[in-house]
């Protein structure tokens, strides 16, 4: 008879979904092991770049070019990457993948907390327009759930994390459980009024953000310092460290191990269960197997599928829970890179006070009631953006001269600039996929990820419309010198990678069922972005969290009933 498992549940990954799985499972009384391949980051203590003044930043913010070229060629391209938080990011030399970032840009953290420390904090609910999209137009497979299945879990998650935003009562962008909204600035308010007047049916609202506008669940309100991605010791934005990790720790049921690289998941063909997780210590390279009754894979879209693909056995020669053969396929990312910007005259005596970690949002208005007549692409997009008082110093290169007059010119801010950039839904394509390279391995002997990805014609057409409509809206709002932006983003650059282990009702064409439970392995759950059959056009992290909470609830009930 086999020994008792060491843990009731093993959670692989400690980012947005891993933290949620650990919190929920420990609070339900399970003894949980949470693993992360990265280093430990303790809340506050390890936010060494937080509030670092400009004169303390190495090289005053200039990139450490040689180091970045050698060790961070992928990560250093992110807007959020810099010396104040480089210690959160993956080292691309130590942990590489096969492709050039032009093919697919894989942004990764390499610390406990994962990308929850670095994320953009925008949170929006999916609607039935999204959950029904695959069925309606035949791209991909139907979602096994609808909005009513997840709505209570959205509420559950939002009440815990704290979401600031404005209720708008839009059926295609359901409201969250809101804390008070952040405010628009004077120029954004003017643009909002013009857009809503000139374009019936379009709406501009303040961004919905997992940033606290008032103290909430023991965490402090935002103090508007600006660069959230350096970490926030006030806990004003949701991260594992600020929110789910303290909750899980307080139960006394959590064991957290950092520096643990998961090589694969063991499977017992007799019981047809996952039995344990094979781990390599990132420092000593020592190998260990941890056993558990439940396994939650929450290692990020690409990370989770890499682990499953590398968990090969006689029963699953193409990767664990991959009897369908779709594991790794239908990789998606929002398409972005198009939009518009222009200057807004008439507000030069106004500026802003404080650094708002949030922008505005224009919800989807395309193809809401069936196919719009004037476009041929399917689905839609939303815009994020903001008006900013431009920085005179930032335009120093374009101001002529030197000396006292030049210095005085830089003391003043530049004009107001309004920018809108779109996030477009990406269709699921079978050939957009990740595989394991059959020869190249990393320093742990784990096969490297190789991506195959190309935008489709639908995304290309959508990007053109995103630029066209943004330009039109800005011009109608009184902006001048409007520039239309149509550079396509590199795949992965939206950092909304989804798919590769999709949910579905048919085990023949999906990896997970409606509960994020593997069709093939009842005690195995995948609840991060890998599970998504489609992307919507809204930022997906909130949906990952809600699906995770929902899946833990189901898993623990199943466990209690002796079904898994």
């Amino acid at each position, binding site marked *: 008879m086999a020994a008792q498992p060491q843990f009731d549940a093993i959670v692989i990954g400690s980012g947005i979904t891993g933290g949620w799985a650990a919190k929920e499972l420990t609070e339900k009384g399970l003894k949980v092991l949470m693993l992360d391949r990265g280093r430990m980051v303790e809340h506050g203590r390890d936010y060494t770049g937080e*509030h670092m*003044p*400009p*004169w303390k*930043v*190495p*090289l*005053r*913010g*200039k990139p*450490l*070019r*040689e*180091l970045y070229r050698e060790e961070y060629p992928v990560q250093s*391209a*992110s*807007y959020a990457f810099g*010396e104040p938080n480089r210690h959160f990011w993956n080292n691309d030399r130590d942990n590489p993948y096969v492709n050039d970032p032009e093919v697919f840009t894989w942004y990764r953290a390499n610390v406990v907390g994962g990308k929850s420390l670095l994320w953009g904090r925008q949170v929006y609910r999916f609607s039935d327009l999204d959950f029904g999209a695959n069925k309606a137009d035949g791209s991909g497979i139907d979602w096994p759930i609808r909005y009513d299945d997840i709505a209570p879990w959205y509420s559950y998650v939002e009440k815990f994390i704290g979401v600031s935003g404005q209720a708008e009562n839009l059926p295609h962008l359901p409201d969250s459980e809101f804390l008070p909204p*952040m*405010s*628009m*600035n*004077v120029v*954004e*308010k003017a643009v909002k009024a013009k857009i809503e007047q000139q374009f019936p049916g379009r709406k501009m609202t303040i961004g919905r953000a997992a940033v606290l506008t008032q103290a909430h669940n023991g965490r402090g309100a935002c*103090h*508007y*310092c*600006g660069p959230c991605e350096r970490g926030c010791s006030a806990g004003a934005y949701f991260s594992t460290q600020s929110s789910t990790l303290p909750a899980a720790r307080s139960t006394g049921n959590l064991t957290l191990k950092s520096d643990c690289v998961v090589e694969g998941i063991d499977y017992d063909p007799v019981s047809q269960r996952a039995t344990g997780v094979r781990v390599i210590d990132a420092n000593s390279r020592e190998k260990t197997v941890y056993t558990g009754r439940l396994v939650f894979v929450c290692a990020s879209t690409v990370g989770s599928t890499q682990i499953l693909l590398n968990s090969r056995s006689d029963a699953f020669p193409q990767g664990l829970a991959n009897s369908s053969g779709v594991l790794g396929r239908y990789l998606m990312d929002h398409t972005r*890179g198009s939009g518009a910007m222009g200057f807004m005259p008439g507000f030069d*005596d*106004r*500026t*802003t*006070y*404080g*650094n*708002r970690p949030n922008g505005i949002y224009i919800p989807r208005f395309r193809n809401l009631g069936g196919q719009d007549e004037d476009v041929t692409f399917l689905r839609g997009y939303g815009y994020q953006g903001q008006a900013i*008082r431009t920085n*005179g*110093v930032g335009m*120093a*290169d374009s101001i*002529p*001269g*030197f*000396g*006292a007059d*030049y*210095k*005085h010119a*830089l*003391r*003043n*801010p530049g004009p107001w600039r309004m920018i809108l*950039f779109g996030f477009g839904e990406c269709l699921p394509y079978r050939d957009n996929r990740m595989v394991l390279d059959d020869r190249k391995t990393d320093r742990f002997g784990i096969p490297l990820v190789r991506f195959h990805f190309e935008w489709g014609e639908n995304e290309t057409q959508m990007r053109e419309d995103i630029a066209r409509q943004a330009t039109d809206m800005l011009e109608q709002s009184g902006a001048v010198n409007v520039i239309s*932006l149509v*550079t396509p*983003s590199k795949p992965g*650059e939206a950092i909304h990678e989804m798919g590769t282990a999709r949910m579905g009702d048919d085990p023949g064409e999906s990896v997970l069922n409606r509960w994020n439970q593997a069709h093939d392995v009842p005690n195995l759950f995948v609840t991060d972005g890998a599970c998504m059959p489609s992307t919507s056009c809204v930022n997906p992290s909130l949906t990952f969290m809600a699906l995770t909470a929902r899946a833990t609830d189901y898993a623990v009930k199943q466990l209690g009933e002796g079904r898994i």
Partner: protein
Amino acid sequence: MQRRDVLRLSLALLGSAASFSLARALQADTVVNPGMVATVFDPPGQAAIELLSEMIIPETDTPGAIAAGVPDFIAVIVSSWYTPTERKVFFSGLQQLDAYCLQQENQPFHLASEASRVAALTEQERIASEYQPPMQGGSFYRQSSDEEAPFFKKIRELVVLGYYTSEVGCTEELAYRPAPGEYNGDYEFAKIGRQWSH
């Protein structure tokens, strides 16, 4: 001798001398790290950097570039961060300043009169204004740097960055609020009278 010929001669002379010292400096500076040191300026060069810093951002009702420590920042960047191409453009710019002042009043830049120095830097700005940068690719996130950008752009960029990220630049010349505590999107600019530093 025409000034143009002086310049050409100076550049030719600089070419061989500079390439040797640059090559050696590069050998020594292959590791980029924030503890890097400034090694490439001789005393006249250091004097020129100090003069240029203060000429671009002088002391006014607030301290200038020297008080903000800008020359030390420039020395570090040019010594240890610049690529060979950037360093070559930078040093030939210094040499052109010297050549200009030598031709004007038979003194190198760091010993020349203020009028001569201003004229020399103005001439560099004119040269820079005729420069056609290569096409810049990129999206919202990407900005490529132009290593060939002319001397005037380089020196002014370093003075501006060094000054406006300094404690003096952030807190005295601009307005610094590291933890504002609130957001007001409709704030009267006249209340601060200068832009925020970030």
